[in-house]
């Protein structure tokens, strides 16, 4: 579980995160939602340690980030996996090499063991036919699946996904959402997903945090969000005319 307490973050005079507290539970798909510019990505990058918070506390399974020394910070990063918005695959490496990369860099397994582990995770995301292809030779959905395989190949405790289904067609987006949810349950990971996609919210939103202009306005789950009386949340959820009509019916 990850807990954040009273997080503040600003860039120059612009306050991006203001007094945010929340809990992201293990084995659940935790969603951070909100419009563009609401601070979702900054919050995720704070959780990943890519940004240092101005104030507040990040607690990873009862370990306070403020009390960690440099070695502990490196060790906690090794417990994290990240699926990037643009997949962030290494262009010059094949699918197998991309998935094997964290094993090559951070473990002492033999070549055979590393290949076996990488192939197991490639199989888990159904990409057996693409192991020798370069990222440029596969579709956006497949790239996302490679990104997921690479993120979980070290069996992380925490999985972070930055808009994992952006740029994908609705059907592939649901496949990716479901894959992330299945992996979260299967490996009992604390998964935190940034999204502004309502399909994802409704499909996999077990714990949802709604941000607006850097402030947490609401927290609940996918059932509660549809009946929320919070006006800002309602505006976000029912921003589409089509969804409004479906609600009336």
């Amino acid at each position, binding site marked *: 579980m990850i807990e954040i307490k009273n997080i503040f973050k600003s860039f120059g005079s612009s306050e991006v995160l203001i007094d945010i507290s929340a809990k992201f539970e293990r084995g659940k798909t935790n969603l951070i939602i909100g419009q563009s510019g609401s601070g979702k990505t900054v919050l995720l990058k704070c959780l990943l340690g890519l940004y240092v918070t101005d104030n507040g506390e990040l607690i990873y399974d009862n370990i306070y980030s403020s009390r960690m020394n440099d070695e502990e910070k490196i060790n906690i990063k090794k417990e994290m996996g990240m699926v*990037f918005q643009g997949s962030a695959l290494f262009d010059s490496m094949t699918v197998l090499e991309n998935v094997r990369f964290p094993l090559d860099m951070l473990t002492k397994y033999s070549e055979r063991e590393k290949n076996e582990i990488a192939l197991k995770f490639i199989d888990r995301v159904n990409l057996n036919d693409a192991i020798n292809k370069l990222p440029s030779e596969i579709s956006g959905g497949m790239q996302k699946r490679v990104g997921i395989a690479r993120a979980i190949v070290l069996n992380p405790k925490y999985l972070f996904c930055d808009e994992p289904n952006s740029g994908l067609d609705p059907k592939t987006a649901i496949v990716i959402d479901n894959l992330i949810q299945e992996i979260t349950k299967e490996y009992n990971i604390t998964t935190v997903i940034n999204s502004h996609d309502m399909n994802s919210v409704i499909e996999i939103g077990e714990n949802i945090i709604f941000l607006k202009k850097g402030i947490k306005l609401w927290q609940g789950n996918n059932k509660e969000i549809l009946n929320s009386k919070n006006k800002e949340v309602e505006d976000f959820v029912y921003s589409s005319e089509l969804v409004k009509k479906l609600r009336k019916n």
Partner: protein
Amino acid sequence: MVKSSFIKPCKKNILYKLIFKEINDLVLDSIPIVSILSFFIGGVVSIQMALNLESPLLSKTLIGFATRQSVILEFAPTFISIIMAGKVGSYITSSIGTMRVTEQIDALEVMGINSLNYLVFPKIIAMLMYPFIITFSMFLGLLGGLLAMTLTGVPSEAYIQGIQMDFDIFHVTYSYIKTLVFSFILATVPAFHGFYMKGGALDVGKASTQSFYWTSIIIIIVNYIITQLLLS
């Protein structure tokens, strides 16, 4: 940046692979362009020397002597380094800059890998092979001069004698000292522009241009300082 690239190193076997890849990309791949430029510029330099030393009172050996001095002291180390600022520098900036834009550097950081060590350190080490290119350039420059003189009708014996005339080994040492300093500049300045760039794909191009601009300027200024310190 340079200090950070030397700490928290990757595994040795991975570093070796990266260094050999960079030697191939940065040094060996530059040999064709350096060869063509050196050979023809050597030829042009010797023809211009011959043009300016037409007096019958001046020995033809002076053409070889002047060509050698130009090639060894200035053309090979400095002129080729400016060319390399365009070729190698823009490659380094654009490859690292693209990794920044496509979040590949963030991916390395999230994994707990020192991205500066992974990306920049192998380039600094690979560029230690850069004097090899300059040696090659010196040789081909002088060879180009010999061919040009033969075609112009100047006896090759006079040119070769000129090359050997009043040879001062310190001039070669000076040239290699410059080359080593330039190799460090060629690896680090473009890497800095790529690593710390912000923006999108268009900004990668801008960063490459900036990188060439600054690398060239720094090389020219450092060239002046080293020359002032060692030769004046």
